[in-house]
């Protein structure tokens, strides 16, 4: 019990030791690049760009990309469109549930600077203040070709080791945490969980 208290609310998501695979690391790096599983979590209007990507026309499965409903197995988190504070809470929780190494790809202009919802009370303006983005694709909405290009970019970054969002999240956790708490208020996880009790 005491150990858990030290980790605080996020249940030790950040403060744990990484496994180092010295011998097989190049092999694993190659495998990581070739097998990106996407969390099936469609936020915003970019979700509708996913079917063409997955089906016969663009078929991202030929690069080993597969939509995967369970976040624990997934590697790539697509933020497909605008993010409201409410969605952001879920995104953070799901992102923390994914296991390192994990990558995050943001679609369209909304996650970058709010896009067309720049003056909305309900859309998060700058996503990378709350969670680290590895690759952002500009456009409103980006065409599937652009998304493919973004995915190629993330593959390249995995190969060179530049896709280190998960590392940044661990290292700068205080910063991200502060921003999250500023937007949602302290102790938002527990509060949010309790809010939904009334619905059940």
């Amino acid at each position: 019990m005491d150990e858990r208290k030290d980790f605080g609310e996020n249940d030790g998501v950040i403060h744990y030791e990484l496994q180092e695979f010295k011998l097989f690391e190049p092999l694993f790096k190659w495998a990581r690049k070739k097998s990106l599983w996407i969390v099936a979590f469609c936020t915003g209007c970019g979700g509708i760009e996913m079917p063409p990507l997955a089906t016969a026309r663009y078929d991202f499965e030929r690069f080993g990309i597969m939509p995967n409903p369970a976040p624990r197995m997934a590697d790539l988190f697509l933020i497909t469109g605008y993010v409201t504070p409410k969605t952001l809470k879920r995104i953070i929780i799901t992102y923390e549930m994914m296991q390192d190494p994990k990558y995050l790809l943001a679609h369209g202009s909304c996650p970058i600077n709010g896009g067309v919802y720049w003056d909305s009370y309900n859309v998060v303006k700058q996503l990378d203040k709350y969670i680290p983005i590895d690759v952002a694709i500009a456009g409103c909405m980006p065409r599937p070709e652009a998304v493919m290009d973004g995915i190629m970019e993330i593959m390249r970054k995995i190969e060179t080791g530049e896709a280190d969002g998960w590392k940044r999240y661990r290292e700068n956790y205080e910063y991200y945490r502060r921003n999250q708490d500023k937007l949602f208020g302290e102790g938002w996880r527990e509060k949010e969980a309790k809010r939904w009790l009334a619905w059940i």
Partner: protein
Amino acid sequence: MTLVPEAYVVPLTLFSPLVFGVLAWLFDRDWVRETLGVIGAAVPLTVLSLAYEKASSGTISYTIDTGVFKLHFVLNSLSWYFAFIGALVGIAMAFGLSSTSRRGYDWLFSLMSFTGVMGVFLARDFVSLFLFWELMTFGSFMMVLRRNRHESLKYFVLSVIGAYSMLLAIGMVYAKTGTLDYAMASQTLLLLTKMGGVSKAYVDTIFALFLLAFGVKAGVVPLHVWAPGAYGENDQSYTSFFSGVLSKAGVYGFIITLFVMPSLYGIYFAMGTFHGHLTGTYLIAWAGAVTVVVASFLAVLQEDIRKLLAYSSVGQVGYIILALGVFNGVAVGGAMFHVLSHAMFKGLFWLISAALILRTGKTRFEDFGGLAEKMPVTFAMALIAVLSLAGIPPMAGFASKWLIYEGAIQAHMPLVAGTIFLGSALAFAYVVRFLYAVWFGQRPSDLDDVREAPLPLLVGMTVLAIPNIVFGIAPGLAVRLINRFFNTNITVNSYYSISTPTGTYNALSVTLVLIVGLAIAGLVYIYGANARKIKVTNTYQSGNPVTEEYNLVIRRNFYRPLAEALDFWLKYSWDRFYERLANLSEDFADWLREGFYNGNVQSYSWYLAIILLILAIWGVL
């Protein structure tokens, strides 16, 4: 053998539980009562273990002369096998009772039924069988009566029906043969059948009455309705004996009718055959098959831990009945083996439920959860029991089920064998329900201060858990015992390996390969990143945060889709049928009473006149 003289073996086995039970009831003090009770249960086990050599090679007879008739008891390898299983579960029950019960009453009646069971197993004539049968029923009835009148009444009525039909059957046997000894009676009966002194219908009636009597105790559908209530509304430690051994008395009765009176073979032939199977045994096989399917389906749909185990117990005894009905060497060997393994794993199950109820005070699945962390040893025992019941290979439950499968398929009873497959899948389903609802998931907040089960209960569990593993890895041990008293057609290649004419099962090689497989898997596991323990609330709920305050685990109606698929069949219930029957007979009796005893003197004189007339016509007067 030198320790206990031969003459004392049988009386010690028979009466020590009863005597110590009475003593425990008289000296109703803490510790004294428990010590006496455990001694009472331990004596038969010790005596039987010491008498193993003698009993397996020959027989130990014992006779009580009451003046009117003689009671014969024999300890041979068959009765030793059953009595030993009974004594093993009995000692476990005694350990369990010493932590779950604080009353001399419980000790008296549970040990009384212990004596009754021993008597049933050792009896060699119908009088002693009937006497001890009633003693056993009375003890168990008093245990239920203390807790629930309604359920005890149900048990009582069905037991009385069973007892009367047994009495009637014994009377019919005695009327024709003039003897009450098993062997003599059956021989005379066979002779009479051959000479035409006894009609076919007469023998069929005897057969049917015996089956009714023993079927009640074994809980064959549709005579099972007492079982869930009587098993459930009881001290759970005692239920381990009740369900583990008392139901075996019913099975033992089937064995008596089928094998101990060997000439009854002839009687089965007298009943004719049906598609190449003996009609009599074929009926038993189907009764067993129906029991397996009905009881297992009902077990899957239960919401109460005691009800689930009770129905599962009925279903497992159904396997034994089925295998006896299949009536070839392999299947009967399997039945005998299943008697052992069912007594072990179901006794273990009931002790676990006793521990759970003792520590939490709850019985419904919806109130349990997440206890694996709080009661780790009990959980380990539960895992053994579950693996054995579900029939996972290196466990006793698998070995016995394997024999039943082989026997049933070899006997060319395909549909009966099909029900075994269905029953085993259903067993998977209900043990998983038990595991999930009780041990895993989020713990309700009122179970946070649950402690591990008390030591005596754990000892009792261990006593029953060890045979599950030992006889699983070394099925040859049990089969060798069974081969002593019954020609099973099963070859024992070594302790670890048994083979039937068509198949073979080497438990040790399965165990070793399994260990190697687990080791390979474990190596892969160890190579990966170190696992970090997380809270139960850190779980994927479509991104929603999860709180301790709401329990997400599915606790109620876990198998709802199955109930939906079966809704047509679930409309009918034997329970309701009997209740309606009871109401009808009550109404009928009321009508009779009101019609006849109407207080009118004139009508009374009319009854008298009519009766006199009838007697006159019959020629009595």
